């Protein structure tokens, strides 16, 4: 097998000696990591996966049954038709950087490492879920997400290897050395150290946490550092499926809950499903943890990244007229003297908040679709997103307690009132008790509705994973 076949790419890997050398050393370490920390118990099974083998329409989603360790993790940059200059910040209009400018080396490396670290982290968080899959369809989706997170790691490692020399290689090795939830060498972001113990959490994670990824990648896909911009653009095409898995997963859980409520006089548990209010608590938990990923509401780092032209706003080029963001303020509610007051924050310092705003809007749209599904099933109950101040660990609100409506809680029972809106031990036990593997082609666990259509239009009883 030629190098380009083993590692599909459009970055001229066969002529880039430096990249070859770096990857030759890194790839075996990656495979060791995958065997140790990848999906437990399924490494020898054939899984119906899509593989990106090129960037054109036919190539980016090639479906076939493959064993995961044989998956061809590739390196792709979205081609750019036209010359695209730096689009924002202090020097808009200058030529995009094709190499790393020395003065931006450290901030760029930090951005790439922080993003890159989340990719293997999620694989680690999800490694045991295969054993309790609700169907072969879901099992396949889990593995699809896993191998693509693996590829996203490759994409970030490509940037490190290609542009950051020895430091970059060390950082790439570090990505494989950190472990989600390990007290001594945890993953960088706290959300990625939270265990994903059941499939409801998995759907919430792919719905909310992967969606943070979408917005981070979207902001980086505006970057003046062209290789990062193009890498992130390609990652976004894959990410869409992860979000689909998450959103529709929650829809199917809610649908099934509504159906079971009808069948069992409102007692979803009696029917063996997950009650809607319980799903709500999981939404509260993962939505709030995912909001943390955007960073502090008021941030000088985000301002620097923007000023340097490294990280823009979501859809910066399309959506905004003023790409300097030097003028203008964002009203950020902060807590002062025990009350919520508005702080006028210079726009550049509020870039994290801008991104969070877009993210929340996106989540609200999904929330509407869930409620439409509930309505279709004839249920009265609705789900909502908690206020952005609820249950936060980073930023202006981390030092205070808020309820899901965003009201400041001050009494001695504040912590308990927050906890009441989060999954409790009983919820965890109940959801855990439902997690039993269903592996017959076409069959689904009782707590989740089947999907509307199969992957790549396959029939309902298609053998997505050959066990």
């Amino acid at each position, binding site marked *: 097998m030629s190098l380009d076949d083993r590692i599909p790419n459009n970055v001229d890997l066969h002529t880039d*000696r*430096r990249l070859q*050398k770096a990857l030759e050393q890194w790839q075996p370490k990656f495979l060791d990591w995958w065997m140790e920390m990848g999906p437990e118990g399924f490494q020898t099974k054939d899984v119906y996966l899509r593989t990106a083998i090129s960037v054109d329409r036919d190539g980016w989603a090639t479906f076939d049954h493959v064993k995961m360790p044989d998956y061809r993790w590739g390196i792709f940059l979205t081609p750019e038709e036209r010359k695209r200059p730096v689009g924002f910040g202090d020097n808009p209009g200058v030529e995009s950087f094709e*190499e*790393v*400018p*020395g*003065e931006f*080396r*450290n901030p760029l490396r930090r951005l790439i490492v922080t993003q890159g670290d989340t990719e293997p982290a999620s694989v680690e968080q999800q490694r045991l879920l295969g054993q309790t899959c609700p169907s072969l369809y879901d099992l396949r989706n889990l593995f699809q997400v896993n191998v693509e997170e693996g590829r996203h790691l490759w994409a970030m490692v490509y940037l490190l290897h290609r*542009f*950051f*020399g*020895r430091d970059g290689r060390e950082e790439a090795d570090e990505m494989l050395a950190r472990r989600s939830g390990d007290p001594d060498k945890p993953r960088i972001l706290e959300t990625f150290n939270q265990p994903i113990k059941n499939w409801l959490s998995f759907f919430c994670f792919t719905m909310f946490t992967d969606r943070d990824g979408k917005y981070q990648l979207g902001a980086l896909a505006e970057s003046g550092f062209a290789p990062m911009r193009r890498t992130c653009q390609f990652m976004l095409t894959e990410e869409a499926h992860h979000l689909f898995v998450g959103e529709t997963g929650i829809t199917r859980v809610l649908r099934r809950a509504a159906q079971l409520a009808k069948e069992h006089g409102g007692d979803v548990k009696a029917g063996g499903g997950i009650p809607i209010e319980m799903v709500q608590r999981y939404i509260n938990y993962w939505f709030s943890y995912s909001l943390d990923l955007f960073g502090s509401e008021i941030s000088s780092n985000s301002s620097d990244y923007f000023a340097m032209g490294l990280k823009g706003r979501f859809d910066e080029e399309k959506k905004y007229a003023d790409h300097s963001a030097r003028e203008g303020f964002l009203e950020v509610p902060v807590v002062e003297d025990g009350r919520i007051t508005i702080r006028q924050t210079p726009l550049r310092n509020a870039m994290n908040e801008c991104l969070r705003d877009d993210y929340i809007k996106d989540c609200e749209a999904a929330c509407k679709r869930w409620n439409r599904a509930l309505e279709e099933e004839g249920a009265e109950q609705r789900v909502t997103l908690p206020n952005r101040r609820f249950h936060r660990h980073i930023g202006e609100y981390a030092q205070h307690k808020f309820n899901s409506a965003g009201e400041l809680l001050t009494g001695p029972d504040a912590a308990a009132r927050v906890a009441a809106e989060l999954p409790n031990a009983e919820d965890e036990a109940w959801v855990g008790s439902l997690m039993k593997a269903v592996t017959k082609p076409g069959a689904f666990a009782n707590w989740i509705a089947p999907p509307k259509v199969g992957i790549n239009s396959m029939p309902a009883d298609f053998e997505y994973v050959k066990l």
Partner: protein
Amino acid sequence: MLGGIDLRGYNRAMADDSAATSRGFTDFETDPSRYRHWKFSVDGAVARLALSVQEEEGLGPEYTLKQNAYDLGVDIELADALQRIRFEHPAVKSLVVTSAVPRIFCAGANIYMLGKSTHAFKVNFCKFTNETRIGLEDLSKHSGVATIAALNGTAAGGGYELALACDQILLVDDGNSAVSFPEVPLLAVLPGTGGLTRLVDKRRVRRDRSDIFCTIAEGIKGRRAKDWGLVDEVPSKTGFDAAVTRRTDAAAAQSTRRAATPVALPRIGLERESDAVLRGRHVELRVDLGARVADLLLSAPAADEPVERAAMLQKGAELWALRAFRELDLALLALRLDLPGVNLVRVRTKGDGAMVARVDAALLANADDGFLNEVRLFMARTLRRYDLTAKSFFALVEPGSAFTGSLLELLLGADRAYALIADDCGQLAASAMNDGALPMTHGLTRILNRFCGDERAASAARKALSAGALGVEDAEQAGLITMALDDLDYEDEVRLAVEERASLSPDALTGMEASLRFPGPETADSKIFARLSAWQNWIFQRPNATGPGGALTNYGQPTRPSFDYRRT
């Protein structure tokens, strides 16, 4: 005009921090026939430098040099005269520094010149004058030329500091002439040429007396000046010359100066090729102001460089060791004073390192010759100027490089060293020159300094270096190279490091490098530079000195300074 180069754009260009194009560089070379401000004479074993500043001959047009006050041009002449005593006048055993102007020895650095200069210029001006004063002390200590300040009139501020740099000070007791430090009471700044340090460290003037002395503008004269140790003798006006002669002759009689034949120092005249290149025979400086980077390249001696005593003496000023380091000296001065826009210098060497080692060995083996010893002392001073230059230095070891012996010092003194791993890659090697013949201002060798005074690490590295030429990977192991990189990484890594460095605040870098470059002990010399770069520079920037109500601003004006009295 000085040396045919128009210096009028000098301060203006300094203000524009990256412009060094289409204007003259400062001419640091002169010779006695062109001195304007010093009367230089040699009579047997005694040399005499009498200051007589020409008011209208300042380097800049915007001030006159009243009261025998000096500017950079005056100090360039002084520095030149000291070099000539070393090389051209080996018979001189004592030097008298005095004034040719009645009743005034020297009023120090010209206030109006300082007031009109950019901060960057002031700092580098002070640095240069300090190096000249330390060179004066070095002349006595290492070359055996006794120095006597004959203050036949008032010595104020920098004037008294110049006297303090001499071994002995005589002050005429005429009821009028005083020594003084009026900086604090009159100008709200500090004596910037080592005066405070020398007062207590060198002359050991009691602390409370020093304190008083530094706060009375008119200074101290006569008997009390001697009692306090500010001067060594206070002869009467009529007895003054005889007293000076007596001390001069006595000092000359005790001199240990080594014998030598005179060697004339010809003008180097670095060639300017476009605005971007300064070229000498062994040194080349290429400037890329857009990138804020310069490339300094030193060539090792050619194969026919003499290493036998007679042939070396024959070659005189054209000896590689002298010529190359004189060129380096001029390049460093150009970097400091004429190229403020350069933030980082990539330092490379090329040629046969073994030749450097042979030259080094020959210089040390023949150190009993006064001239060859002076060559080594000159190399040492130039390398100290390198250590004290406020630019980032990255040494680059590439195929064909010659970081050996005295040229290895450039690598050891650099802030970082990068090396390319290749089949024919550069090698590092030591010579006896690395073992104390070229000390830094704080007294350490650069190897020991590199390891922050850790004798074990330093001697291990030294041992590795003496086992023959050391490949760059072994050199990295030995702690002599910051990063050794293969051809896949080298270019990009160096580019990134250079770009990254050149993007940082030059002020913060100056302070950072000055702090990191001199671990370990202090000497009076190193203290002087440290105090200069910390306290003096800080005070010069404060409103109480240079703000609208500052004392320096209002000096000579009808308005009185108004201070912000809150203490920092």
